């Protein structure tokens, strides 16, 4: 169901660079006050789409309506948005105060008004005391907070974030993504964020737009994207997934190597003999105790254990399908409890409600 009142509507956006089609008839509605991420590998067109929304590139075809106004042909300076770039793009020769006030000064607001607004913004991003510093004196994360304050200074209707966290170190990235999300929800500003980091997209977004090769693969909530990937690309790109070759039996069951399993939703509609790909998340596989009486149980042995901290990624070989190794995600404690080691036997269950057949 399309929302009744999208703040931003893209219709048939197409962009070509010479022979290369960067965007192919992209249409999308962004609900008011939501945070939408464009997620995809590099070259999928997500940044181009953001720049077209910003008026920094011009689409070859298609229209953009923002807040009821057709902005398709407007130059960037006539549109209503704030933008934050991966490189921060703070003006190095201006103080933090002047950077944040940059757009305010131009609106001929009174000096006192500007001062209080900048102070308010600096407080908002948690850096109330840095007004007299220069950007070069701040850390990357601090600079990006200032860039955010500058983008929000003029209270734009739309906030555009172009890979805002990619230049930061891992800890700062996690901290800042929570801050940005909290700020965005507090101000209820419609926000579009471009990212190639699925974790970022999953943790921050109301809706994720997964893109590939200039097209939208799927739009959905993080839950929908992760649990019900609409295409093989989405399943592959978001999260880790087992891709197993199987053959439909025609009765809702599928054959994986020598194993006959109950298939997931829709498998009963497949005619017998159809070659299918079975998608199953490593964390959905159940092992040992839980797998004993599992309808889709199978015996297997541990081939490799990759220690990841809280979790371990265990590669197991199914006795019935030895050529297709299966990844299983297990908490470290359960691994310890079962004292699993390479070569150890174990039983696994492949829950049919978690399978996707694509």
């Amino acid at each position, binding site marked *: 169901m399309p929302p009744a009142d999208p703040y931003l509507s893209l219709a048939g956006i197409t962009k070509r660079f010479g022979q290369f089609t960067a965007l192919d008839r992209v249409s999308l509605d962004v609900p008011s006050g*939501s945070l939408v991420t464009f997620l995809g590998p590099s070259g999928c067109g997500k940044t181009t789409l953001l720049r077209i929304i910003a008026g920094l590139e011009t689409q070859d075809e298609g229209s953009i309506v923002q807040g009821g106004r057709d902005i398709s042909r407007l*130059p960037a*300076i006539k549109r209503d948005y704030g933008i934050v770039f991966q490189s921060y793009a703070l003006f190095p*020769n201006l103080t933090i105060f002047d950077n944040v006030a940059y757009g305010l000064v131009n609106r001929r607001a009174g000096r006192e008004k500007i001062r209080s607004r900048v102070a308010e913004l600096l407080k908002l991003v948690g850096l109330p005391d840095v007004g007299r510093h220069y950007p*070069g004196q701040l850390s990357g994360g601090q600079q990006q907070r200032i860039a955010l304050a500058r983008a929000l200074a003029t209270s734009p209707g739309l906030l555009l974030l172009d890979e805002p966290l990619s230049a930061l170190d891992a800890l700062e990235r996690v901290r800042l993504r929570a801050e940005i999300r909290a700020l965005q929800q507090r101000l209820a500003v419609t926000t579009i964020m471009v990212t190639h980091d699925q974790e970022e997209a999953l943790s921050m977004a*109301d*809706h994720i737009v997964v893109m590939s090769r200039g097209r939208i693969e799927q*739009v959905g909530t993080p839950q929908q994207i992760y649990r019900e990937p609409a295409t093989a690309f989405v399943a592959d790109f978001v999260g880790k997934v087992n891709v197993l070759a199987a053959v439909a039996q025609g009765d809702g069951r599928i054959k994986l190597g020598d194993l006959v399993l109950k298939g997931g939703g829709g498998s009963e509609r497949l005619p017998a003999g159809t070659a299918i790909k079975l998608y199953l998340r490593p964390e959905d596989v159940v092992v040992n105790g839980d797998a004993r009486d599992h309808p889709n149980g199978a015996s297997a042995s541990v081939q490799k254990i990759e220690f990841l901290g809280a979790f371990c990624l265990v590669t197991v070989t199914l006795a019935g399908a030895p050529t297709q190794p299966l990844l299983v995600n297990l908490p470290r404690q359960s691994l310890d409890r079962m004292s699993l080691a390479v070569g150890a036997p174990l039983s696994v269950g492949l829950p049919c409600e978690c399978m996707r057949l694509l």
Partner: protein
Amino acid sequence: MNTSAAGVARSLPVPPHGRVKPVVDGQRRIAQALLIVACAALVVFLLAPLAAILVKSVQDKDGTFAGLGQFRAYLQSGALLESAWNTLWVASVVTLITIPLAFTFAYALTRSCMPGRQVFRLIALTPILAPSMLAAISFIQWFGNQGALKVLLMGHSVYGPIGIIISAVYAIFPHALMIVITALLLADRRLFEAAESLGTSKWRKFFTITLPSARYGLVSAAMVVFSYTVSDFGIPKVIGGNFHVLAIDIYQQVIGQQNFNRGAVVGLILLLPVVLAFIVDAYMQRSQQSQFSSRAVPYAPRPSRAFDTAMFVYCAIIAAFMLAVLGMAIFTSFIKLWPYDLHFSLRNYVYGLVDGGVIDNYFNSVKLGFLTALFGTLLVFVTAYLIEKMRGMNATRGAIRLLAAIPMAVPGMVLGLGYIFFFNEPRNPFHFLYGTMAILVLSTIIHYYTSSHLTAVTALKSLDDEFEAVSASLKVPFYKTFARVTMPVCLPAILDIARYLFINAMVTLSAVIFLYSPDTKLASVAIVSLDESGEIGAAAAMATLIVATSTAVCIVYALLTRVLLRRTQAWRAPASD
């Protein structure tokens, strides 16, 4: 969050639109207009004059089409072949001498721990401050008919190839040196450390790391030296004697015999080796691109007594030689009459320059320097900004990029010749410029455009590409951001360009020799005419004035970059994290 409000990819087909044409707003229109003006300026003041030479070269004296008749006639004269041969072999010898000298000097400055590296560097750069004729005058004093060290030449005359070669080596040395230093500084310390950990010998490191990584710089320097020597007019004019080179031929055809068409032919022939050198250099530069990562760790030399001493001795000899050349010119300007009366006197300045009114030429040069620095910097920087930071109008921007690279490959004499042909044409709407200071300023800006342009582009490229996007999102027009951010951040580069243009305007001769009028005669031209009339003392005095002025400008520049920048560019202070 209510999931029913999900953003949805609409599957409905969208009615076909025409190609979207963005609305052009006022500030964008300004940028576009400026771009067009810049492009037009380069076409009128660079391309059109060069085209005029082409046209003139295939016409006879009456202006009727003569095909390649002029070329044929000149090629058959034999005189051309001799000049062309002379030009080529002299330039080759100068290159073969200068490059090893400059490389060793640069190596000493960058790879040794000898004392006085800064002083040596400064001394080696002094020839830049002087017109090339200064070297010629000085060598006449040292080795001429009444020269102090004439015996060293063992009967050979300094007038001719010997004089041209040593003067050119002196004058071009700093240009080669700077290029080679830059190339040597590019070396990555990690390569040397890796070699060391593998137990590589010093010599092997030199031949497998140092030389290969400096290779492109050496070729580039060689091309610059070669082009400079081929194009230079002042040195052969003063010390060449009866030894003919192409630059002299052009001058004689145009000024002596008023044979413009034949001048055009020689000009085109002079253009050939320089364009060839330019192409070789451009080709080498392109293949260099991927050689170094920008994350290279700079090389830090370690002290080595024997090596440092050897390098110190070498640099001291070169520096002494440089100071001897400059010193002799200055000395000549302050004595009564060489070699008979060596007492101190201001006679050359007072009688030679002031009383004769020749001093006006000096003031013209200073004026030219300031105007060139002011308008040249403005034109170069704004143009570079527009092509680097504006979007759209790709064809125009590409054309400007191409045009900006051309002046490097055009000898000053050829440019000056083109200006005569183009602007002296009464039907040309710009004819009014002919004989004015404006045409001198314009030709000088164009003559030195390429280096200035590259400096500006490098500075602009180091700025974040998104400044313009950010200011558009904040609804600040681009010109405000240009004034508030771009210019202040690029101030060092802007000052550098201004200084470069000023100094070159002070010393340039080859383009302006065709373009001055009695009212706008320049100091460099005055040196040539004073020398022609045998007043070598006054010529030396004029050269000394130029050196003093250029030095003063360099000092002002150094002070500006230190004092003023320290005050206005507090943000350059190192980060405190």
